[in-house]
């Protein structure tokens, strides 16, 4: 599942989250969440704000008290161990560097708490700063550094004491896109070098896909699904997950089962989707843009694309290697399609056919989720 070496993996801690809950008065921030994070794994907690991902991270770090359940680190219960005795590294979105200490003093802080000798401390601080490529900044103060540099210092400080688990709470949230991409690569490299278990909280699905071995998708205080980025993208178990990860279109309509398939009637057209209906309620078809072919009216099924819908081009974007179309169906709903650029593109307002293979659509229970993160 992950590509860390055996030696490195032995350094990372396993986390067992066992039915944890967190209530604030009558508000439920987290309800009976269970999850296992493997040693040395890079696990992301992904979800919209208020979904419980940061609450879970704070409970692992010990910044807030559990309302129920337990957390075990390498089979040892830490649910009621105070934060400063958990030996877990934490990187915060707001850096949280001590402004009255130099970079070197900041990084040395956790070592001082562990009564590491001066010589060993100096060596470890130097090594940690070298890992984040800031060895020449040891005597600067946080206020003299850029946001990206400050976050590198925070990272050095969180890993200098070799914690078996590193928690990151949207560490790149305050940085601009370009810097974010550079630091994503660095975090990935550091994860490989350290071999510690990483838990990374983000609301940015792209970031989660780039970094993680597995992703836990949070929504409304629960985990919707845990899996690799690919599994979440190709086989979402809920409509929320399907819409949160990547681009998608959702088709709604009455359904009936037909053999091993389920058939939905959308805008007067019947569409097949693999598998039996999920649950008793309404069903939807989730479509990825790259699965949908845009073709001239009357083209009919080609290469097994037997699901065909007719619509009008409402928007078209030239993306270089591909064209992106927004097509409005007869019932007013929209479908996004991304097709390789070939031949003359369809004009705005043109009537087109949308075609896809039944097995490339995902049948899901309609949980009322709407697109947009």
């Amino acid at each position, binding site marked *: 599942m992950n590509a860390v070496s055996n030696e490195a993996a032995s350094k990372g801690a396993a986390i067992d989250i066992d039915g944890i809950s967190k209530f604030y008065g009558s508000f439920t921030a987290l309800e009976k969440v269970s999850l296992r994070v493997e040693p040395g794994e890079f696990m992301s907690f992904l979800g919209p704000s208020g979904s419980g991902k940061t609450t879970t991270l704070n409970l692992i770090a010990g910044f807030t008290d559990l309302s129920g359940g337990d957390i075990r680190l390498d089979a040892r219960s830490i649910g009621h161990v105070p934060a*400063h005795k958990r030996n877990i590294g934490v990187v*915060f979105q*707001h850096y949280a560097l*001590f402004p009255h200490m130099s970079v070197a003093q900041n990084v040395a802080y*956790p070592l001082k*708490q562990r009564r590491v000798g001066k010589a060993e401390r100096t060596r470890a601080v130097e090594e940690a700063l070298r890992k984040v490529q800031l060895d020449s900044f040891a005597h600067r103060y946080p206020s003299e550094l850029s946001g990206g540099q400050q976050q590198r210092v925070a990272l050095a400080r969180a890993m200098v004491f070799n914690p078996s688990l590193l928690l990151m709470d949207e560490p790149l949230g305050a940085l601009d896109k370009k810097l974010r991409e550079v630091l994503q690569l660095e975090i990935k490299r550091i994860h490989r070098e350290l071999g510690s278990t990483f838990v990374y909280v983000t609301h940015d699905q792209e970031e989660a896909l780039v970094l993680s071995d597995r992703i836990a998708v949070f929504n409304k205080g629960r985990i919707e699904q845990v899996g690799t980025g690919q599994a979440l993208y190709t086989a979402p178990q809920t409509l929320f997950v399907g819409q949160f990860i990547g681009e998608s279109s959702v088709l709604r309509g009455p359904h009936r089962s037909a053999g091993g398939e389920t058939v939905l009637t959308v805008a007067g057209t019947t569409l097949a989707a693999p598998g039996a209906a999920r649950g008793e309620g309404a069903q939807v078809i989730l479509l990825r843009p790259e699965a949908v072919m845009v073709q001239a009216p009357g083209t009919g099924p080609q290469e097994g694309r037997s699901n065909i819908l007719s619509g009008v081009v409402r928007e078209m974007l030239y993306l270089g290697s591909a064209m992106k179309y927004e097509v409005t169906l007869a019932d007013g709903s929209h479908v996004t399609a991304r097709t390789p650029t070939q031949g003359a593109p369809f004009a705005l307002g043109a009537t087109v056919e949308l075609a896809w293979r039944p097995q490339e659509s995902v049948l899901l229970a309609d949980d009322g989720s709407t697109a947009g993160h």
Partner: protein
Amino acid sequence: MTRFRPGRLLLQLSCLLIAIWLVAPTLVVIPMSFADRKSLAFPPQGFSTQWYANFFANPQWFGSLVVSLKIAAMVAVVATIIGTMAAIGIERLKTRAGGIIRVLLLTPMIVPGVVLAVGIYAVYLDTRLVGTWTGYVLAHTLLAIPFVVIAVGANLAVFDARLETAAASLGASRLTTFFTVTLPLILPGILSGALFAFVTSFDEVIVSLFITSPQLKTLPVQIFSSMTRDADPTVAAVGSLIFLATTLIIGLGLIFGLRRRGA
């Protein structure tokens, strides 16, 4: 080329007058302290430094200065510790109780001094605290705590409490976190609170007049009783010395503060 603007000139003139009006009474004591004769007449006659000599030689005067300095130092320490702890507690409470406690702690600032003095005197009579070191320190601490609570509270309001969470994640206990992170960062507020506490005690006169005794007198009480008894220009000498000392302290504070901000 500056054009003659009557409005601007009027503004400058009125500012100058107000400045003189504010400072003049303080400056008047300086020439008076060098008077030749035992009178507080202004302008003074002649020149001598005998009143300064008297201040340092007369145990009534110099002794009261030492008493005042000792009490003020003790008050600064006690009020700063209690006030800082209170300010931190109030900041942490974040509920209505915090606001109520804050108002309660600030009441000594709002209640008229005389009312407070009568109350303190009545309690001290029963508890035999009149004219004692403990009595002075307790009463002045009561008056000084609000200043510490305000100064430290203002500093805590801009202190990033998330740094304490970060310190915990790095292995620091709450106590270690306080001494290595919180305290260094709110130190400016604590120091200015301590200075306010010291000054509050040092120039406190109303309560001190009530709880004074012939054996233990603070400098303001000594000044007041000297003024009511006879026109002794030593008062002016004391005033000039205190004026000089405060000017020096504030001046040095400004220079130090500016240099630190520049760094």
